C-alpha cells in the first residue's frame, strides 16, 4: 500500500532531515537476508539456522541502558531531591554508555554500524506504510522505523546528558562543567533537561509500542533476538566481513568512554565557577557559632550583614552584643564574602534576596523550598529551629547546599 499524500507529508515534517545520508549501503544486502519468523513455515521449510545478529557488546549496551535509564528516570521524576547523587551517577553511567554506543556505531559489529541503518526517507515511509497495511516483513538488522527510533533515542539521551551536566555544574557546582558554568546557565539548562527528559520518555514509549507491534502483530521475535542475539534465518546469506567488530572494535569503543571519564574527572576536580572554599575565622566560628551555626557569608548580602551587625543588641529577640573590635573583625569577614561574591544557588536565590526582617527564612525561595517540611521536623531534637541549616544540609558550612547533601532527619520528636 502506498501511503496517502497527507500521511506522507506528516511523516516528512517529523523526519529528522539531518540523518538523511547516513545510510550508504543500498537495499540489496537486506534483500539477500530472508528472515523467517512464521512458525508454520519453520516446520515445512527447514534448513533454518540461527544467526548472531546482535553481538554481545550491543546486547549488554541495550540492557544496561534499560537499567540506567530506569534508575535515572525514577530518581529524576519521583525521588526527593536528596537522591540527586544517585541520579547523577546514573547520568554518568548513561553518558559512558552513550559514548560507547556512538563509537560502536563506527567500530562495532556490522548491524550496529550507523552506516548500515536503513534510514533513507523513502525506506522509512515505505516501512510505515507496510506497518499500517499490516504487512511488515522481518528485517535482519534494524527495520527502518526502528533505526529512526534509535537515532531519535540516542540524540534525545545525548541532549538529556548534556543538559544534565550543565545543570549539575551551574546549580550544584558539581561535575565536569562546574568550573565554567554560571548559576543562571545551569538554571536555564534545567528547563531544557526536563523537556529533553520528557521527550525521551515519550520516545521510549513509542519504542516499546513498536516492539509490541513487532512481536504481537507481525510475530517478529525482536525481544528474544535482543536477549540471545540470534535471529532465525533461511536461505542464501551474505555475511559481511568483521561482522562482530571484535576485538579491535571493542577496544576502540571502550576507549572513547574511558577517555571521557578520565577527562571528566580532571575537569570535575577544578574549582567551580562562583564558589570558593572559605577559611572561617575562629572569632566568627566561636562568637556567632555559640548560639547558631556560623552561617556561610554568602547567605546574606553585604548590606544585610551590615544591618545584622548593627543590630546585635536586639538580635532576633536576644542580646547578642559584641565588643567593638570583635564585631569589626567579624563584619569585615562577612562583607568581604557576602552573597554577591558567590554564584551558587543559595547565594543567588537566598543570599542576594534582602528581606525586611533580615531573615533568610523570609525569602520566597527559602519558603518555597521548605513548604513541604512539617513544622514538627523543625522542632525535632537535633534540629530545633528553621535556622539550623546544618541539621539537614550536611554541606551548609561550605555554602554549597547541594541537593545530594540534604538529609531530613526522621526519627522521634
Amino acid at each position, binding site marked *: 500500500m502506498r501511503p496517502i499524500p497527507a500521511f506522507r507529508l506528516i511523516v516528512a515534517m517529523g523526519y529528522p532531515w539531518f540523518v538523511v545520508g547516513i545510510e550508504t549501503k543500498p537495499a540489496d544486502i537486506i534483500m539477500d537476508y530472508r528472515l523467517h519468523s512464521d512458525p508454520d513455515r519453520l516446520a515445512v521449510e527447514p534448513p533454518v539456522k540461527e544467526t548472531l545478529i546482535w553481538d554481545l557488546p550491543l546486547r549488554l549496551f541495550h540492557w544496561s541502558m534499560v537499567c540506567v535509564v530506569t534508575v535515572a528516570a525514577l530518581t529524576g521524576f519521583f525521588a526527593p531531591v536528596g537522591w540527586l547523587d544517585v541520579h547523577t551517577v546514573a547520568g554518568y553511567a548513561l553518558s559512558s554508555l552513550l559514548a560507547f554506543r556512538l563509537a560502536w556505531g563506527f567500530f562495532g559489529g556490522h548491524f550496529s554500524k550507523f552506516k548500515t541503518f536503513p534510514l533513507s526517507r523513502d525506506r522509512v515511509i515505505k516501512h510505515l506504510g507496510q506497518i499500517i497495511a499490516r504487512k511488515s516483513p522481518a528485517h535482519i538488522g534494524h527495520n527502518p522505523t526502528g533505526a529512526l527510533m534509535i537515532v531519535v533515542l540516542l540524540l534525545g539521551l545525548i541532549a538529556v546528558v548534556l543538559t544534565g551536566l550543565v545543570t549539575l555544574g551551574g546549580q550544584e557546582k558539581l561535575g565536569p562543567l562546574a568550573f565554567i558554568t554560571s548559576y543562571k546557565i545551569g538554571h536555564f539548562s534545567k528547563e531544557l533537561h526536563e523537556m529533553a527528559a520528557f521527550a525521551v520518555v515519550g520516545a521510549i514509549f513509542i519504542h516499546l509500542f513498536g516492539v509490541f507491534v513487532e512481536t504481537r502483530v507481525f510475530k517478529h521475535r525482536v525481544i528474544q533476538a535482543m536477549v540471545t542475539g540470534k535471529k532465525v534465518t533461511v536461505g542464501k546469506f551474505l555475511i559481511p566481513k568483521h561482522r562482530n567488530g571484535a576485538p579491535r572494535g571493542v577496544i576502540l569503543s571502550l576507549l572513547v568512554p574511558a577517555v571521557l571519564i578520565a577527562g571528566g574527572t580532571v575537569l570535575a576536580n577544578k574549582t567551580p565557577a562562583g564558589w570558593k572554599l572559605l577559611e572561617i575565622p575562629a572569632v566568627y566560628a566561636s562568637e556567632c*557559632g*555559640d548560639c*547558631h551555626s556560623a552561617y556561610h557569608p554568602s547567605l546574606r548580602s553585604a548590606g544585610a550583614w551590615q544591618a545584622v551587625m548593627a543590630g546585635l543588641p536586639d538580635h532576633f*529577640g*536576644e542580646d547578642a*552584643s559584641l565588643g567593638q573590635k570583635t564585631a569589626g573583625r567579624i563584619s569585615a569577614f562577612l562583607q568581604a564574602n557576602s552573597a554577591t561574591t558567590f554564584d551558587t544557588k543559595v547565594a543567588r536565590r537566598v543570599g542576594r534576596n534582602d528581606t525586611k526582617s533580615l531573615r533568610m527564612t523570609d525569602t520566597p525561595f527559602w519558603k518555597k523550598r521548605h513548604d513541604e517540611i512539617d513544622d514538627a521536623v523543625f522542632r525535632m531534637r537535633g534540629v530545633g529551629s528553621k535556622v*539550623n541549616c546544618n*541539621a539537614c544540609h550536611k554541606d551548609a558550612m561550605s555554602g554549597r547546599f547541594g541537593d545530594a547533601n540534604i538529609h531530613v532527619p526522621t526519627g522521634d520528636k
Partner: protein
Amino acid sequence: MNLSKGLLARSMVAVAVVACLAVQFVHPASANQRQQIIEKITSEAKTLDQNFPGFSADRGKALFLSRPATGKPDTPSCTSCHTSNPSNVGETRAGKEIAPMALSKSPERYGDLEKIEKWFRRNCNSVLGRACTPVEQGDFLTFMFSQ
C-alpha cells in the same frame, strides 16, 4: 662541657614551660581561676554594700529557676534555653546545643572572666531587661559551682 650542660638545662626548662602551657590549654578551668573570679565579684559587691555577707547557692538557684519575663519576650527565663536542670544539655532558640551549666557536667566552663562577663551582659539583658547585680552574678555562679 659547661655549655652543653647549660643548654640541656635550658631546653628542659623550655619543655617544662611548653608542657605547662599545653596542660593549661586542655585542662578544665582550675578551682583557682574560679576563686579569683568569685573574689572579683565579691569585691564589686562590697563596694555597693560594705556589710555584704557572701554569696548563696540557694539564692542563685531561685534566680535561675525564676521567670522574670522582664526582658525580651522570647527569653522570659534562664530555663527557656538552659532547661530547669543545670545538669541538662540546653538548646538555643536557633537549635544549637548548650553544654550543661553545672560545673560537674561542664568542667571546662567558668575559667574565662571575659567570657563570663559577656554572657552575663547579654543574657541578663535578654531575660531581665537589665544588667545583673554583682550579688546576682555571684549567687548564680556559686549555685552552678555547687552543681
